[in-house]
């Protein structure tokens, strides 16, 4: 087995992983950084983020407002000290990205622009047209190339963490091209593997988002926190789930039902406004908008498309010029995947799974309960999103906490003695990965297990949930774990065997899916993106103003525990949008 010896290993080469790598290279240039990613970094899913990234800049905006929006948006399940740190550092990171060349959209004066986004009190979303994530990722990737201390292991599939002496000391990876195992020994490891939307059937996520990092940490005893909070993005293409950015609504797009009626006014988001107005109508938060879609569907007011029910996203009134300048990618996507010109026709959209609010439990410094393991970006739960993330907080998060993870992991690595021998742990992991490949007696087809998982998740862990539905999903998932043990692969080669890697991924996905389903089943209340139709249809701060912790149990469903939410200066209150939000916004200003 090949051995790579490094100081800090980062798993995942998306925005968070790259930001962490650069932070280490800048703060501790003497430390070696190994960036391990199963795809070449610029393929990471940060690339598909469209709308923008939050950062307070305008005269009418304040850090307090961003704090308030985030905490209220998260239905008070946010750790407020961490949110404070977050909002204080967003703008600095956006400026840093600008210095590195990110082509933020500009005003005539040459200053960067901001746009409106859902659930935010005022325009504070920095954007690069509607390809913000793409530009941030490529800026970070290209900038990372200038640091000699960063070495990349591109297309190396991390399959396990190496833990010894109670400390995370590296990882085991498979070189995709050859199928060879590589032991990466490190003094600290940063997990930055992104979300797990692929455990659902219809989602906005790339194929790589199978929850590997969450699964790896989870199996080594780190809890997955708040996994029941899965964000359904309200505007995606039916069938494929391709993302149609919230920026469309930030720029003034309307959502209408089959009668051409702006139905959001019926769901406490009015009054009807013609210009984009913060927290009102189409600029409500994502959970509320997706829930409104569900109700419209129940009332039979959605539009039937060959790929499922939809509502209309109307951009026609914005005009060709603005669309070309602000939403060129949306124009391209509509043309390619629907064959329509969004300047003259409405885009059919529906909700799809988009984001995992929860993740690897980490504190506000990105440290996890496993010494030596740090987590940042979507795979982590540092505590800023609560029960519902606001659009444009996740790109900001990967920059703010990516940097912090890098700096803290570097500081940790400096204090550690050289790693001990990890040979035994690595050999055991290698053997279990190889066992999947050499199994001869299997009967199950990989795709069928995967499809059953995604179907069960979409059935039971939807926008609205019931105890029966969630229990059924849990039962299916439990059965799938056994079926995965009997998978039979068509491909027995080592070189570039994506079927084999897919089977390992599916193992992680199933663990993550179970953490989600059992966490959801046990939260007997409704909050943010977790809404129940049964008797637990209201928020219950008495019992459940607490984080869910799913703890891995071998050969059994996860153990569900709870931990306190850090509340400092904004006590729980009713979450209101539309006309009612005006007064709350004024309060936050005071």
């Amino acid at each position, binding site marked *: 087995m090949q051995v790579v010896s490094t100081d800090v290993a980062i798993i995942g080469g998306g925005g968070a992983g790259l930001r962490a790598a650069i932070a280490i290279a800048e703060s501790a240039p003497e430390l070696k950084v190994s960036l391990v990613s199963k795809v070449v970094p610029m393929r990471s899913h940060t690339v598909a983020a469209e709308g923008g990234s939050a950062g307070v800049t305008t005269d009418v905006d304040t850090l307090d407002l961003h704090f308030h929006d985030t905490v209220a948006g998260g239905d008070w399940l946010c750790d407020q000290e961490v949110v404070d740190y977050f909002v204080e550092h967003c703008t600095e990171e956006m400026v840093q990205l600008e210095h590195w060349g990110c082509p933020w959209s500009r005003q005539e004066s040459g200053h960067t622009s901001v746009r409106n986004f859902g659930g935010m009190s005022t325009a504070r979303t920095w954007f690069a047209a509607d390809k913000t994530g793409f530009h941030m990722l490529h800026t970070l990737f290209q900038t990372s190339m200038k640091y000699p201390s960063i070495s990349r292991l591109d297309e190396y599939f991390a399959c396990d963490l190496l833990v010894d002496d109670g400390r995370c000391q590296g990882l085991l990876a498979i070189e995709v091209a050859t199928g060879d195992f590589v032991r990466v020994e490190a003094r600290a490891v940063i997990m930055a593997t992104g979300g797990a939307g692929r455990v659902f059937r219809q989602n906005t996520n790339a194929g790589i988002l199978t929850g590997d990092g969450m699964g790896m940490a989870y199996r080594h005893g780190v809890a997955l926190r708040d996994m029941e909070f899965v964000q359904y993005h309200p505007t995606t293409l039916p069938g494929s789930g391709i993302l149609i950015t919230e920026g469309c609504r930030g720029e003034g797009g309307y959502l209408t039902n089959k009668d051409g009626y702006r139905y959001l006014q019926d769901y406490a988001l009015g009054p009807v406004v013609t210009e984009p107005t913060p927290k009102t109508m189409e600029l409500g938060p994502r959970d509320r908008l997706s829930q409104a879609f569900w109700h419209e569907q129940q009332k039979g007011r959605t539009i039937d498309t060959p790929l499922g029910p939809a509502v209309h996203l109307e951009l026609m009134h914005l005009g060709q010029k603005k669309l070309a300048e602000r939403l060129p990618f949306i124009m391209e996507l509509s043309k390619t995947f629907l064959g329509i010109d969004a300047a003259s026709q409405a885009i059919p959209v529906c909700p799809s799974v988009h984001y995992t609010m929860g993740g690897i439990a980490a504190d506000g410094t990105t440290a996890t309960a496993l010494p030596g393991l740090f987590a940042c970006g979507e795979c982590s739960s540092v505590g800023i999103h609560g029960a519902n993330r606001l659009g444009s907080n996740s790109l900001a998060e990967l920059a703010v906490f990516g940097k912090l993870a890098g700096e803290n992991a570097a500081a940790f690595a400096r204090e550690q003695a050289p790693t001990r021998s990890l040979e035994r742990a690595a050999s055991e992991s290698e053997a279990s990965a190889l066992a999947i490949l050499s199994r001869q007696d299997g009967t199950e087809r990989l795709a069928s297990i995967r499809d059953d998982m995604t179907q069960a998740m979409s059935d039971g862990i939807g926008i609205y949930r019931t105890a029966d539905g969630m229990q059924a999903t849990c039962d299916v998932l439990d059965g799938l774990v056994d079926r995965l043990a009997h998978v039979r692969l068509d491909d027995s080669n080592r*070189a570039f065997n994506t079927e084999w890697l897919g089977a390992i991924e599916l193992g992680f996905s199933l663990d993550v899916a179970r953490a989600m389903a059992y966490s959801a089943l046990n939260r007997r209340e409704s909050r943010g993106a977790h809404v129940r139709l049964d008797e637990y249809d209201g928020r219950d701060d008495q019992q459940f103003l607490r984080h869910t912790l799913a703890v891995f149990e071998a050969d059994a469903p996860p153990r569900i525990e709870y931990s306190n939410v850090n509340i400092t200066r904004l006590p729980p209150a009713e979450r209101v949008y539309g006309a009612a939000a005006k007064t709350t916004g004024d309060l936050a200003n005071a």
Partner: protein
Amino acid sequence: MTARNTYVRPMTGWYRRNPHFVAYMLRELTAVFLAAYAGMLLAGVIALSRGPEAYAAFQEFLASPLSVGLHVLIFIAAVYNAYTWFRISPKAMPPIKLAGKRVPDRVIVVSQFAGCAGVFIVMLLLAGGL
């Protein structure tokens, strides 16, 4: 990535594989005709330097059917060559801006053809006037 035993496909016959490549090779081939024309002009100059008889012989050659045929071929090749280069010239020049806005590629291409036609007409008029 250190892939083992990768396979590199041969490039033999690459120029036949795609209509774009065929067009490209044709464009490159037209350069041969342009070179032939340059050679012809050079021969004329040399003939002129050798005295009136040599030049008369050269003129006689120019009037021969072989030469006329060759010139027609060269003319077609030259027009095609000009056409291909005019078409891609916006790519080869720094962006031209008018009142802060980039002049569209199409406008550049069309104005080149227009300019060329203009020069051609002026030449014809001049030749007619002489």
